[in-house]
């Protein structure tokens, strides 16, 4: 099992490193393939995220991409609600939490798919526009 968890971790990390929300697939892979309890899988993702994001944040900050102005209300409200809902998550049974996670994934997946298809269509349209005056 240890080897399997390691490879699931690599897969989740790969997606996370590419900026596509690694945890969103790491958690279902750990529960579905790795036989890990839903709450434990969520804890793994939360804890593993901390060292990885510290490194990523330092790199991004050095490159000047991190903006902090006007973000205090967002961050404070996010931390407070995270505290409340993390406690709430402990009171929910694993099957219910798993189902909720699945629904969240489907919604997120549909949003991503739509956005990506729109991007492809736009790309094609601008390509056609650039070609038509020449022809």
């Amino acid at each position, binding site marked *: *099992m240890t080897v399997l*968890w390691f490879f699931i*971790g*690599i897969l*989740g*990390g*790969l*997606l*996370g*490193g*590419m*900026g*596509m*929300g*690694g945890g*969103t*697939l790491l*958690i*279902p892979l*750990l529960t*579905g393939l*790795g036989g890990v309890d839903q*709450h434990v899988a*969520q*804890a*793994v*993702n*939360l*804890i*593993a*995220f*901390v*060292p*990885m994001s510290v490194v*990523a944040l330092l790199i*991004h900050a050095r490159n000047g991409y*991190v903006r902090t102005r*006007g973000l205090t209300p967002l961050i404070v*409200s*996010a*931390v407070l*609600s*995270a*505290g409340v*809902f*993390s406690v*709430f*998550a*402990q009171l929910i049974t694993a099957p219910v*939490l798993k*189902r909720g*996670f*699945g*629904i969240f*994934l*489907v919604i997120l*997946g*549909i949003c*991503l798919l739509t956005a*990506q298809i729109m991007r492809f269509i736009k790309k094609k349209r601008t390509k056609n526009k650039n070609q038509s005056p020449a022809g």
Partner: protein
Amino acid sequence: MNKANIRKFVQTNVMNNVRKKRLFGITAGILIGSINGLLGGGGGMLAVPALTALGLNAKQSHATAILVILPISIMSAIIYLAAGRADWSVLWSGGIGVLLGGAAGAVALSKLDSGVVRLLFAIVMIAVGIRQAIG
């Protein structure tokens, strides 16, 4: 109406008011924190579009999303740990995998056609989500 126009429209007509911007920040923060705390991940996927709506560009949004998620994850990780949800054998093998995969993913990002990767990712997400929601 393209994306730049939409952003400009949002900035001039909706976000010009500091109070409205703060209200949007608080609302987005509550949503990001609740999802990330409840499901142990996924907050970053919501933080990026929220930051874009606040006027950040794509690179800034991705980088700053990490700044938003880091304190949330620390807060949630502490609560999950206190609730005894950490399984150290999963955490070590999976966590090291995540760190290695994360580094590799960050390097691979510049070499892959991220459009196709994103499309595949969205499809996998929907499939995994349906399995989670039904199973």
